[in-house]
């Protein structure tokens, strides 16, 4: 993709995110706000995980610290401290920075799995200790505050909060992107690639990694602060393993090797969660399934796979690819439909409502409703449908793969040189 089209896409996305929200429902405005916070969190996490190759399993710590810091500042503003509301996230940045320096110094003493375990232990330390610390973290119930008006802006509606979040997201994203263009940003990549060599070229690897960790924690703190400003409350649950896991999930599904990959993951998951949470109880199951499938079949994330396709856009012979790609899409959709059908059926058949219905009719299994249709658990047709979807979908995928292998061979034979030159 050329630089111009990249700027066009980003500009368009920015325009939409400014112009569209006023026409949306409060629910959607809230979802978009969550999406931006998750995106910023994932971007800052990915600085560490994707760019420096340091997999942290405890980034909730810095998100949480940022949130609490912002709330303390909000409380101070309530008491008359003259800090404009839009600057509240600075408290999160500062807290994340301080926590990041300390944790970063210790955790980057180790690498690989041991690094992951140190970060996990630090986050668990926060999570298990904070409910007992009344002053700083408000004990089990946490602390709450209120957004104060500033310069005539009341920050009373979610839309106003959304624009505040958007502003901070854009600033932070630009800064994080600029980071990758600095000498230190390049060193970050070199550290991931070959830390030993970096050391023998005159760099203090430990100090460098601490600095990277700190920058990442600082931006995570901003994300946490934005969440605190939005919710006007925070409790120790922000430090839970669940929060740390979510950001790992967003980042790797979106693609840790791309700068905007994590944003892609965060946006996709928060939008789906918003749409799905009303429709199904099994959203987290699908989320886990998607994550594992991505790990297995698209190790660089969905964003990574798409980027690869885009990069080869011109070289690929699309006429030859239309057929296998269309077939694969149909196959994938069939499998997805089959899995969803089975999951939802299980969810109903093993649910409390159905158990209740069974007690009313002790002798036979009552029918159930799914997707507006009535199904009988003992009818063959109920089970034939998902079976056909799954088997048919797998078969189609196999066919598509065989076609692709053929066309790959053909292409490899015809133009080895061009594909080599493109790397």
């Amino acid at each position: 993709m050329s630089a111009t089209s990249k700027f066009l896409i980003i500009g368009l996305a920015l325009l939409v995110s400014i112009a569209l929200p006023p026409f949306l429902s409060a629910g959607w405005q809230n979802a978009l706000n969550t999406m931006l916070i998750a995106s910023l969190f994932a971007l800052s996490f990915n600085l560490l995980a994707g760019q420096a190759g340091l997999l942290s399993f405890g980034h909730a710590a810095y998100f949480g610290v940022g949130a609490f810091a912002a709330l303390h500042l909000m409380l101070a503003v309530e008491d008359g401290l003259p800090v404009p509301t839009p600057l509240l996230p600075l408290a999160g940045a500062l807290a994340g920075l301080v926590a990041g320096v300390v944790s970063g110094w210790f955790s980057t003493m180790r690498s690989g799995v041991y690094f992951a375990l140190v970060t996990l232990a630090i986050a668990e330390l926060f999570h298990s200790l904070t409910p007992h610390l009344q002053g700083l973290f408000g004990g089990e119930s946490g602390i709450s505050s209120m957004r104060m008006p500033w310069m005539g802006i009341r920050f009373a509606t979610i839309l106003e909060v959304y624009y505040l979040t958007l502003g901070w997201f854009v600033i932070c994203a630009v800064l994080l992107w600029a980071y990758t263009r600095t000498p230190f940003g390049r060193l970050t990549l070199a550290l991931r690639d070959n830390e030993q060599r970096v050391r023998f070229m005159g760099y203090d690897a430990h100090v460098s990694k601490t600095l990277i960790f700190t920058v990442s924690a600082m931006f995570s703190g901003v994300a946490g602060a934005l969440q605190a400003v939005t919710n006007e409350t925070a409790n120790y649950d922000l430090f839970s393993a669940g929060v740390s896991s979510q950001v790992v999930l967003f980042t790797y599904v979106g693609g840790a090797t791309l700068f905007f990959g994590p944003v892609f993951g965060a946006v996709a998951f928060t939008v789906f969660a918003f749409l799905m949470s009303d429709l199904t109880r099994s959203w987290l199951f699908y989320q886990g399934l998607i994550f594992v499938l991505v790990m297995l079949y698209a190790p660089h994330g969905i964003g990574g796979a798409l980027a690869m396709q885009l990069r080869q856009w011109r070289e690929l012979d699309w006429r030859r690819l239309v057929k296998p790609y269309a077939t694969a899409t149909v196959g994938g959709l069939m499998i997805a439909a089959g899995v969803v059908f089975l999951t939802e059926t299980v969810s109903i058949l093993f649910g409390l409502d159905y158990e209740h219905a069974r007690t009313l009719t002790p002798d036979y299994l009552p029918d159930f409703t799914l997707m507006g249709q009535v199904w009988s658990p003992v009818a063959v047709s109920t089970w034939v449908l998902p079976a056909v979807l799954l088997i048919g979908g797998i078969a189609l995928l196999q066919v598509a793969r065989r076609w692709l292998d053929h066309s790959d061979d053909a292409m490899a034979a015809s133009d080895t040189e061009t594909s080599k030159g493109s790397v």
Partner: protein
Amino acid sequence: MEFFFISTLNGVIYGLLLFMVSAGLSLIFGMMGVLNFAHASFYMLGAYLAYALSSVFGFWGGILLAPILVGLLGMVIERGLLRKVHAHGHAHELLLTFGLAMIIAETIKLFFGDFPVNYQIPTELRFSAFTVYGTNYPFYRLFIGFVAVMMFIGLWLLLSRTRIGIVVRAAERLPAMAEALGHNIPVVFMGVFGAGAALAGLAGAVAGAFYPTNPNMAAELGVIVFVVVVVGGLGSLKGSLVASLLIGLFSSFAVGLDWSLAQLFGLFGLGEWAQSVGGLMTLELSSVSGTIPFALMLIVLLVRPAGLMGERN
């Protein structure tokens, strides 16, 4: 005295239970370098499967079949999934197991709901082993400890006395060499992964009847098991045993003690100052009993990452 005796016994038995789960995790890490985030999920799966199967095959049938099924699932996961991402490195393997842990937890919620299930000790096992200081000590607790000890002896005999054990130990130390000597290392890996899963499943099947069986049990035990294997030394069985007992005893004693840092300072005449500082100073040991293991883990990771008994970093 009563507190001491009962706490020691409870602590040792809880420690043995921890060991049943951590043994497999440690063995798998030592051999394959994979930190299996889904290991505690095997424990949870063992409990739920035993519960489901016990309604058909009875309590003993459940306890016997559940670990076998979990072990088979472990083998399938190693063979079909882990091996696929092996080329992308250990971090990727770790992420995959992390995803699997999510799927297992959500699948269990799908079938059994969000609340604890009624997995109970059968009435014939529900009696007290002995009475001390007027307290009836449940026989089933001893039974959990007994199963763990039998497992440890069995595992130890298998690893030290049999041909399989020699191959497994060789594969752990020098996989490439063992493979060059004609041993089928992929099968050994699959076997060890399956066996580790089965052990965790057995622990779940046995302990699930005593402790609550709920969809959070994997997450709760999982972090403690990480603490155990780190403190004991990743890859060291003996270390896992020692660390399991240590953590077990600690958890059992800490809940009953109201010591605080302020009291410690009180011994040096600084008690009042410490009380006035508050915060961390006045926290009682019983309320931070959940924190100490992580602090311990952190200290071990930073000071001696090889753990108490581990040989290498």
